[in-house]
């Protein structure tokens, strides 16, 4: 999957450890969004016709189209349900997260 990855980050321990100017480079993710989700989208890859509408319309860009089948980055999917709602063949199901 080709998506920005979570970075390890150490909180500055004293005032001298704080950077002057920019605090970090771009593409700096230190926390994930998976905990926001109540429902998780699951793609039925047998039914999927690769129309890529879900990839196009995902506000979070978590659907990766680089492989033969679509892959969802569940670290950053918020479970908004746009993909399932917009999927014309209806092959994305919103499944309730356990716990």
């Amino acid at each position, binding site marked *: 999957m080709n998506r920005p990855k979570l970075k390890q980050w150490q909180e500055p321990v004293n005032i001298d450890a704080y950077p002057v100017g920019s605090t970090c480079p*771009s593409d700096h993710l230190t926390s994930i969004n998976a905990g926001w989700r109540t429902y998780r989208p699951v793609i039925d890859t047998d039914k999927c016709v690769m129309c890529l509408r879900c990839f196009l319309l995902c506000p979070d860009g978590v659907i990766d189209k680089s492989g033969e089948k679509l892959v969802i980055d569940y670290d950053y999917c918020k479970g908004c349900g746009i993909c399932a709602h917009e999927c014309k063949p209806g092959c994305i199901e919103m499944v309730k997260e356990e716990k």
Partner: protein
Amino acid sequence: MIKHNARNLTNEEFFYGHKACGGCGESLAVRLTMKILGERTFAALPAGCMSAVSFIYPNMAFTTNAIITPFASTGAVASGMAAGLKALGIENTQTVGFAGDGGTADIGLQALSGAIDRNDDIIYICNDNEAYMNTGIQKSGLTPYGTKTTTSPAGKNLPGSITMKKNMFEIVAAHGIQYAATASVGYPEDLMAKIEKAKNTKGTSYVHIFAPCPTGWGHGSEVTIELAKQAVDSGLWYLAEFENGEFILNKNPKEFASVENYLMAQSRFKHLKEEDIEVIKNHRDAKWAKMRKDWQQK
């Protein structure tokens, strides 16, 4: 010019891991725009949802250079960035400003006006979700008639906001800008084509993107795209361009889709009475009569 669609759009993400609410239309607008503009893009964002969700220390959701500007100065900071890039001899870059509807039509209007006047080579994107959402849903100049917000509450005497949407697109066009357009996240191919045009415009370009907000509008997070499309189909938003001094109406529906279906799907309009909806329809019809008469249709 490349015709963008889901198939040829890059798989690379330049706006990722942000903390916008689930189903946020505005973040989709920023994501698609960044995908078209590419990695050599410098972005300026004023106070507003998109900066609040992407620059949460130590998180940084943009994979390109981006900066938070003072609220009123998106246009001015973007101008300065473009000038700085030119002075440093850095080539093949894009400079873009992403402001909300309040940051464009109210607070940032004079800085935008100045940038267009100087014809600086920047792209200005207005993400229109029809209120100040980041600070808790206050009415802005682009909030339509009958909207319930925290500063325009609906009650016995008033139906919520009693002003119409500011004609922001025409205000920008009146400057004689190089390129201006309106778009909606409900029509993503049209939106991407307009961003591509803005990218290839030398001088200032402006794209006004209509983007629903599940939190502020009170609708399910999954229907964001559907509502953005319904707004266009029912005539409450329009897809148009301004090029070479001419207005062009891109989509001219023969018959409008139901305004009621669009309004009643959102809790900000649930209180509207029949006569309020009539006011909205009359305003829409007057606007369309003028657009159909004066603007070219393609």
